[in-house]
């Protein structure tokens, strides 16, 4: 077995005339988290489905735990756990029955399946709701049960397809700490996400895909460095002067600054750190006082924008996220 828990080379998948995967290659070292980052329709879910043996790729190879996903799918299935974008649990059964069902399908004895179900319900704080039909659960509870269901067989490789989409910050934090706990136990995780902060927090390696192709990969730090330079940001103390600040910044840098948040925070990528003192001087000459003025490394969102030329569909910041 190789040092990679997941290894894919040149995966191709076509649906009719559309090419969903156009040669995706990625490797996930055993016991690490790979963040698969990309906008809607980039091919994230298709990649996961191919690696989880749910669809057969039209080209390329993929190995999970050293087993070929096309030729030895049952061996791959014995190693993996899968949590999709929506909670794939049975609403007409109780939480406990859902977990029992999976345990029994994994050939556990009745007592062993019951024990495992109890263990997981406790871990995901669902013990009180264990005997209730899942249709009475809240969205966050369903998602936790779905995660629990993917863990019944103690998978060595876990696929999390946008595990926090639509979750509130509290549940999102719980999912994150659960992922960290699993990784501490040696589980390999492939996580897809549209959220930069999520990939930044959890993943040791990131693969960025767009239109079914890998457009960048590396550690979060490497990606930020590869895009080059830094971000110069400024906000006028008197927000009526925002336009003047924008004009000064674009005159200095030679690029129109982007507006973030409520539109008064101006950001522009720069390659020369001396731009910061230069901006300070120009603002001073114009008698403009700023409430924020900084030179910082780009966020993954900005990296993504630089790589693809377009943002992710619902961006990286929380304001847009809760509206999505």
């Amino acid at each position, binding site marked *: 077995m190789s040092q990679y828990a997941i290894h894919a080379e040149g995966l191709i998948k076509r*649906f009719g005339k559309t090419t969903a995967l156009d040669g995706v290659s990625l490797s996930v070292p055993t016991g690490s988290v790979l963040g698969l980052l990309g906008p809607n329709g980039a091919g994230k879910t298709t990649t996961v*489905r191919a690696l*989880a*043996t*749910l*669809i*057969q790729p039209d080209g390329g190879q993929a190995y999970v735990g050293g087993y070929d996903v096309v030729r030895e*799918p*049952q*061996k791959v*299935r*014995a*190693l*993996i*756990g*899968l949590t*999709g*974008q*929506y*909670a*794939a*649990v*049975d*609403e*007409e*059964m*109780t939480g406990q*029955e859902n977990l029992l*069902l*999976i345990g*029994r*399908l*994994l*050939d*556990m*004895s009745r*007592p*062993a399946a019951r*024990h*495992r179900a109890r263990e997981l319900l406790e871990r995901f704080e669902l013990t009180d709701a264990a005997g209730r*039909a899942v*249709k009475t659960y809240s969205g966050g509870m369903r998602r936790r049960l779905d995660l629990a*269901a*993917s863990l019944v*067989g*103690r*998978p*060595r490789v876990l696929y999390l397809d946008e595990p926090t989409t639509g979750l509130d910050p509290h549940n999102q934090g719980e999912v994150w700490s659960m992922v960290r706990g699993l990784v501490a136990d040696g589980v390999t995780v492939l996580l897809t996400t549209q959220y930069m902060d999520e990939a930044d927090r959890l993943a040791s390696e990131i693969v960025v895909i767009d239109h079914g192709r890998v457009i960048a990969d590396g550690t979060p730090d490497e990606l930020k460095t590869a895009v080059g330079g830094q971000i110069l940001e400024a906000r006028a103390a008197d927000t009526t002067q925002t336009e003047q600040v924008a004009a000064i910044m674009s005159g200095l840098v030679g690029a129109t600054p982007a507006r973030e948040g409520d539109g008064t925070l101006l950001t522009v990528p720069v390659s020369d750190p001396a731009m910061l003192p230069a901006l300070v001087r120009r603002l001073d000459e114009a008698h403009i006082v700023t409430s924020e003025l900084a030179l910082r490394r780009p966020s993954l969102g900005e990296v993504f924008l630089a790589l693809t030329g377009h943002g992710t569909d619902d961006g990286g910041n929380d304001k847009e996220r809760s509206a999505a």
Partner: protein
Amino acid sequence: MTATTEIDTTTPESIVDTGRRNTAVPSMIRHSLTLAWRTIIRIRYNPEQLIDVTLQPIIFILLFVFVFGGAISSNWHDYLPFLLPGIMAQTVVFATMNTGVNLNTDITKGVFDRFRSLPIARSAPLIGAVLGDVVRYIVTMVVILAFGMALGFRIHTSPFAAAAACLLVLLFALSFCWVTVFIGLLARTPGSVQGLGILFMFPLTFGSNVFSQTSTMPGWLQAWVKVNPITQLVDSVRGLLIGGPVAAPVWHTVAWAAGFVLVFASLAIRAYRRRA
């Protein structure tokens, strides 16, 4: 079944320490039965799933016996023994829709993806869905016979013949429901399964001898009614419950049932493998 070749005997280390079961029962059958258990326990939280096999046949019996019975036959007393076997056939045919709808719901909700990501035979979820509905068919036969008897229906043959009638209806339902399994795998939403299913079932159940004698119909319709598998089933059940020739219709019914399984189970399994 081809899927059995996929069953793998290696034991994942992760499962060993939680106690893997060792039995002589092939895992494909065991997993299918586990999934059938799931279909059955779901009824508890969704008892309205049984309306189509309990209230609906009762309404049909009341409607046809008391509203149309006198017009179709000379009086409703004579019509009841004729109608009841027909209602049994019609109800189970409509009841098979449930299998396709449930399957499609599982697919659209992602539950099927979870099953497909487990190391179980690919055909187990389909077989489990089909077997799980056996309970519904048994419920409906008991309800129809009991309600019919309350209205004065009597079995004129033997308990053995009556049991054979019920078994035949069950066999037909289990084979016919592969049609709805196939539709369930092709359709985009559970609602469209229902729509497509009705399109298929109306000409089968109403274009038959369920409600009236074939001889009263125009020639072109008789041609259809005579080849209709429902007619064969209804003739068999009438013969087995109230007397009459049974050999030919039973043989035809069994042949139709085998045909449905052969054609639609293989179509369904192929559609299932293709549906990604």
